[in-house]
């Protein structure tokens, strides 16, 4: 083989070796341990701090018992407190640490209640263009007990 061709193929071989070397450095060791993903990812996820406390913790210990009893009997009982009020894990452990502001925008309610062809017709839906004149939904509707206008 001509020397220039030898050089070219050596260069190509070096590039392939470099790729394999970089790959061996970049791909985490635990990759493929359980499946086609990084095995250590499971441990990492497990070690994330718990941010949500769960709706039950809002109603117990004489804190928000009134609003809790209204909510638990309403048709929004499947929408947890923290869905709108945000994660409250810290607040439950220390009442001085308040959760973030509640999301009460029209679009947020609309995630469930804007009219979509794919939704069952019995599910309450509105056309935002014609319903409520751009007012906040909570101006008329009580989110803790819908239909209690």
């Amino acid at each position, binding site marked *: 083989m*001509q*020397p*220039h*061709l030898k050089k070219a193929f050596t*260069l190509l071989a070096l590039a392939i070796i470099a790729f394999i070397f970089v790959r061996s450095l970049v791909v985490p060791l635990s990759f493929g341990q359980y499946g086609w993903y990084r095995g250590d990812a499971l441990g990492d996820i497990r070690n994330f701090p718990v941010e949500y406390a769960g709706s039950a913790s809002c109603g117990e210990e004489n804190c928000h018992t009134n609003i809790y009893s209204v909510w638990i009997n309403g048709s929004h009982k499947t929408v947890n407190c923290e869905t709108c009020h945000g994660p409250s894990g810290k607040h439950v452990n220390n009442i001085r640490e308040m959760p973030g502001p509640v999301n009460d925008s029209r679009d947020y309610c609309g995630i469930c209640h804007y009219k*979509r*062809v794919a939704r069952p017709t019995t599910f309450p839906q509105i056309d935002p263009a014609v319903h409520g004149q751009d007012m906040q939904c909570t101006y008329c509707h009580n989110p803790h007990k819908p239909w209690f206008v």
Partner: protein
Amino acid sequence: MESLIWGYVYPNEVEIQWSILIVLYPYITGLVAGAFIASSLYHVFGKKEVKPVARFALLTALSFLLVATMPLLTHLGHPERGIEIMFTPHVTSAMSGFGYIYSFYLIVVVLEIWLSFREDIVKKAHNSKGWQELMYSALALFSYDISEKALHEDEKLAKKLAIIGIPSAAFLHGYVGFIFGGIKANPWWSTPLMPLIFLMSAIVSGIALLILLYIASMKIRKHAIDHKCLHSLAHYLWVFLIFDVTLEMLEIISMKYESLEEIDIINRLLSDKIATTFYGVQLTMGILIPFMLLLLVGIIKNRETLKMIMISISSVFVLIGVFAMRWNVVIGGQEISKSLSGTLTYVPVFFNQEGVLPAIIILIIPFIILRVVTYILPPWKDMEEEAAR
């Protein structure tokens, strides 16, 4: 929003995810494969008429190949993660296979270009000074042997590479077709004909691009056009147009004849959603008109300027038509709901990561690369020698 939806669709379909950038991806890959196959007409099949553009076609293929992944990377929110598909590929992922086929093909094209330009590179290294000398010497890998024997060896290897190159070019683009053809949930995509349809339209678009670039570069350099070469390219364009239209029609006709459960939504797609881009642009403008014009080019004697204009118009129409074909596949396939009883509408935006502006920029970049590459490795000698003959 409501006006863009017809019938029953699923909530997660409302937003069309594969935008104009994903239309561009098979388009650019197709131009690469087409240009390479045009160059192999000389390198493998020894068609001397196309020699003037053979090396230029390789450079064109490289310029477009370098940006082929760009639409995909721009489409990804995290382009830096794109390489991970190469690090941990899975056999069930068609897309990760593309990464390897792309890399293999890039190596073949670079080697092919290097071998066919090596004589020029060595001469340039001898005749230049300073940083140019260093650059050309590096490109020659500091080996300056351009003896008869060495060049003969180069030619032998280049031919072997071109022989490997044709199936890899076909594989590269057939594979893009396979990525769509293998999506069984979408009746507009799922057909084993898809790789072949993609390949034929790729060859057609590649030859059309080469014709236009050849005419444009000769006009810019104020040099006579080799009409024999031009007519030969036009002839191949015409032949591949026939294969292309046959396959495209075969798919539609068999779909209509079989009339499976998805036929209603396919009919609605063809008669409403993509009627203009399918019948108007893809078939009439992209195939029928160029077919007639190129037929006339074959019949008319003399009148070279008229024929050149007809070939240029055909090539422009073919390029637009093939783009429309990619559009009809990528966008059309997403405009029908998985429910098969509803349609959606894609509305392109201009200033957006997924918008028309990045698509235009990505489409301009290969021409800039081509300008740079032809500055470093001028292929004009072949073109001008042949024309002057």
